[in-house]
């Protein structure tokens, strides 16, 4: 009972926040609604027994990435963008196509449990105790089986850091000096 209340609360907040994020005109409002969605998703992670990802989501996504986004929105002048908004037929068509594709995928997930032995089979959840010391299990997996991807991810972050500095650097000022 409590489980389903929590699920529908966090899921509803996530979906409503995402819908508002896509439809708001002002980019700052979009960013705030995306933060709401990310926090609700963190709640879903906690419900699924992923405590480490819950904390990582809040610290990295909400505390890091979204602050970067808001920083850039404030840096870039957006009042030009607000004047040129007009309704486009193309976006309506695209939305309908995506809705049809989504209905198809939803039907596949929905009927997967109705037809046992046919098509996609979604099995039931393992007991939550399989993942109980969550950070320990995650660290065990990360530093044994997935050590090479971990190192590659660190190199990727280094490359992204250097790339971001190179991209955002003011070239004119360096030519003058």
């Amino acid at each position: 009972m409590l489980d389903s209340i929590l699920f529908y609360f966090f899921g509803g907040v996530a979906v409503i926040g995402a819908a508002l994020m896509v439809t708001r005109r002002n980019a700052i409002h979009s960013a705030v609604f995306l933060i709401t969605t990310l926090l609700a998703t963190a709640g879903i992670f906690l419900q699924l027994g992923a405590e480490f990802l819950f904390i990582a989501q809040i610290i990295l996504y909400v505390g890091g990435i979204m602050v970067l986004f808001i920083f850039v929105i404030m840096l870039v002048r957006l009042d030009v963008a607000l004047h040129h908004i007009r309704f486009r037929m193309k976006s309506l068509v695209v939305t309908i196509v995506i809705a049809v594709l989504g209905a198809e995928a939803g039907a596949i997930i929905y009927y997967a449990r109705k037809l046992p032995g046919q098509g996609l089979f979604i099995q039931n959840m393992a007991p939550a105790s399989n993942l109980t010391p969550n950070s320990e299990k995650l660290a065990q997996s990360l530093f044994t089986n997935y050590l090479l991807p971990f190192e590659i991810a660190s190199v990727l972050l280094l490359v992204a850091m250097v790339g971001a500095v190179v991209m955002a650097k003011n070239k004119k000022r360096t030519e003058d000096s």
Partner: protein
Amino acid sequence: MMSPAHYLFLSLALFLIGCVGVVTRRNVIVVLMSIELILNAVNINLVLFSRIFGDAAGQVFALFIIADAAAEAAVGLGIIIAFFRNRETVLADEMDLLKW
């Protein structure tokens, strides 16, 4: 206990909303935010299947996706700042430097 299909539907809904945002919005910053939403929907799936199979590997990959999203956001926003400095716009429609 909720069934796995509930979480799959939630993930599907977030993914589709993110797709609509990527395709319909003209502001490139909002397009990048929609991509973050799509990555987040995928993360829900990975954590769900990690829970279903009782294996931490799915959560490890979700962690990699978060690291990836951070890298993507840093480089993407760097490109947006560089472009804004040159063209004074962040609208996707006006990014037509290669058009002749």
